[in-house]
């Protein structure tokens, strides 16, 4: 186990290094931020001064080394636009994104597991067919379009829910969150629902498949023969076994929820990291782009590792090993 974790961490460091190099060099090539940042009427001297102040006069490799040195000490450079450390900027926006991703994951699980269990328990009932048709639609519907339609119906036509921003936030345990106020909850409902859609479909399908796979198994027959109630067999015995694939997928999907938050945040003007990265790409704010990608990639590495470990804890049959050993 320890060897596995160490090997994975080593691999993660290499991935981060390669990624930072590609992104750094690539972002360097796409355009000169000086054009965007300096007023067009600035004279030559002001231009020169700004270029030196941003460190853009040095050769590329030197800029990368300066960046790398800074990155190791937790300094990813200052945002060209906001003129505050890029890392700080991202960390400021992170709680909003995590809050949204967390709400979406909760919605997906809270709605998806009961629906999936029902659809698996009675595969031929009309309601089950409706649930499965809905889940296919959930896979096919483009997230951003659903977001627009949610705004159209609930914000424009019905006027029930607000469509932009985070609303009022309150501080709970030192974290500013929308989940603690009524206004905040109203604001988070639509974006969270939008973000949850794909995961919801996935959870429904996995739960249903798990039910159908587990129900004919011997342990279920045995539990029934022992005289346990149907409710206990399903909600305790079968449920535990369904959870194994679900935990992996939900864990892995938490990462993609955070990535997909880019879309939802842009639609609902949710002030999280995702909106920040899109704005930064459009403004050529290099330090923020690079810092965002490094932060997100690091998060992914951690999530993947945690899921792998969790998986082995839940299911002792799984032995941790790298992919090399398979085949």
């Amino acid at each position, binding site marked *: 186990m320890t060897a596995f974790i160490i090997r994975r961490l080593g691999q993660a460091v290499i991935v981060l290094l390669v990624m930072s190099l590609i992104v750094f060099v690539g972002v360097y090539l*796409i355009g000169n931020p000086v054009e965007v940042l300096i007023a067009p009427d600035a004279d030559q001297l002001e231009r020169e001064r700004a270029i030196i102040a941003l460190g853009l006069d040095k050769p590329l490799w030197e800029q990368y080394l300066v960046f790398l040195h800074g990155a190791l000490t937790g300094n990813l450079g200052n945002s060209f636009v906001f003129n505050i450390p890029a890392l700080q900027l991202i960390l400021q926006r992170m709680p909003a994104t995590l809050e949204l991703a967390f709400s979406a994951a909760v919605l997906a699980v809270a709605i998806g597991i009961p629906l999936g269990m029902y659809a698996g328990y009675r595969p031929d009932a009309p309601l089950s067919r409706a649930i499965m048709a809905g889940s296919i639609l959930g896979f096919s519907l483009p997230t951003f379009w659903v977001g627009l339609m949610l705004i159209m119906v609930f914000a424009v036509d019905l006027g029930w829910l607000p469509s932009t921003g985070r609303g009022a936030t309150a501080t709970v345990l030192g974290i500013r969150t929308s989940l603690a106020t009524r206004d905040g909850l109203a604001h988070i409902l639509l974006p969270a629902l939008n973000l949850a859609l794909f995961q919801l479909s996935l959870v429904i399908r996995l739960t249903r498949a798990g039910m159908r796979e587990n129900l004919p198994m011997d342990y279920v027959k045995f539990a029934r023969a022992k005289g346990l109630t149907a409710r206990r067999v399903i909600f305790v015995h079968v449920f535990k076994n369904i959870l194994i694939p679900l935990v992996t997928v939900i864990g892995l999907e938490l990462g993609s929820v955070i*990535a997909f938050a880019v879309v939802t945040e842009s639609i609902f003007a949710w002030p999280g990291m995702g909106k920040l990265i899109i704005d930064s790409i459009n403004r050529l704010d290099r330090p923020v782009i690079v810092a965002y990608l490094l932060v997100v990639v690091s998060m992914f590495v951690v999530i993947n590792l945690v899921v792998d470990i969790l998986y082995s804890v839940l299911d002792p049959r799984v032995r941790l090993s790298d992919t090399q050993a398979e*085949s």
Partner: protein
Amino acid sequence: MTTVPQPVAVAPPPPVEAPWRRALADFCRSRLAVGGAVVLFAVMIIAVAAPLISPQDPYDLRQLDILDGGQAPGTMSSAGFVFWLGSDDQGRDMLSGIFYGLRISLLVGVISTCVALVIGATLGLLAAYAGRRVESVIMRVADIQLSFPAILVALILLAVLGQGLFKIIVALVTVQWAYYARTVRATALVERRKDYVLAAHGLGLSHARIMFHHLLPNCLSPLIVVATVQVAHAITLEATLSFLGIGLPVTEPSLGLLIARGYEYMLSGKYWISFFPGVALLVTIVSINLIGDQLRDVLNPRLQT
């Protein structure tokens, strides 16, 4: 007493074309899938024939009249045709816009899938055939890439590359190749050990010939299934990226861009500018997914007994 073992159940050798013909017959068993195929075919015809069947060339500024801007569906245009699906702020017929948009969306989806298929399948075959170092390098890269969501990989690439038709195809190919590599490798690993490959070796055929003429045709079924689903993914991803303003430039108005353009008008109640392109996107994707689902059932060897 010795009985000569009777070769009781010797099946006659199946005719050569049987697997595909049977697959086709199996495919037609699902009405939904056939419906999907019909719809998809219609969508493809529309996309190809867009300039011929559109009431208006939506990107010829001489044909646009700003007075026609923001008309509701069903309004008569000043040029004398009906805006069945309304018009956008510049007086552009949405129906024509959607026809042209479908063209670009389908083109990007199909081209990127085909290129990714060729690259991914070649690498996957190579991995399975060469083994050892080559295999572990290729598959490790694929594993690492697949541990990140597609949209994130595409976002990184487009942040680096910038906008453009060619660039988004590069991004989509990069996102997709690993799926094909994985699929082909898994199948080829099994096929490689079969007698016909040994026989081909024995005949002294070249490695390339064995890989592409003997191994590849036997890895096709799972590849086709993955590719069908991936076309839908590619189209969705392109639309999403274009919607975010980092995919296609405004000169290549795909469905995603049409939807993005309608976003600002939606709050003032002009729903049709975003709504109808989205429906077109949805119809396309659902029909591809229906076909993909049925293909998976038909071609999945584990379900065939």
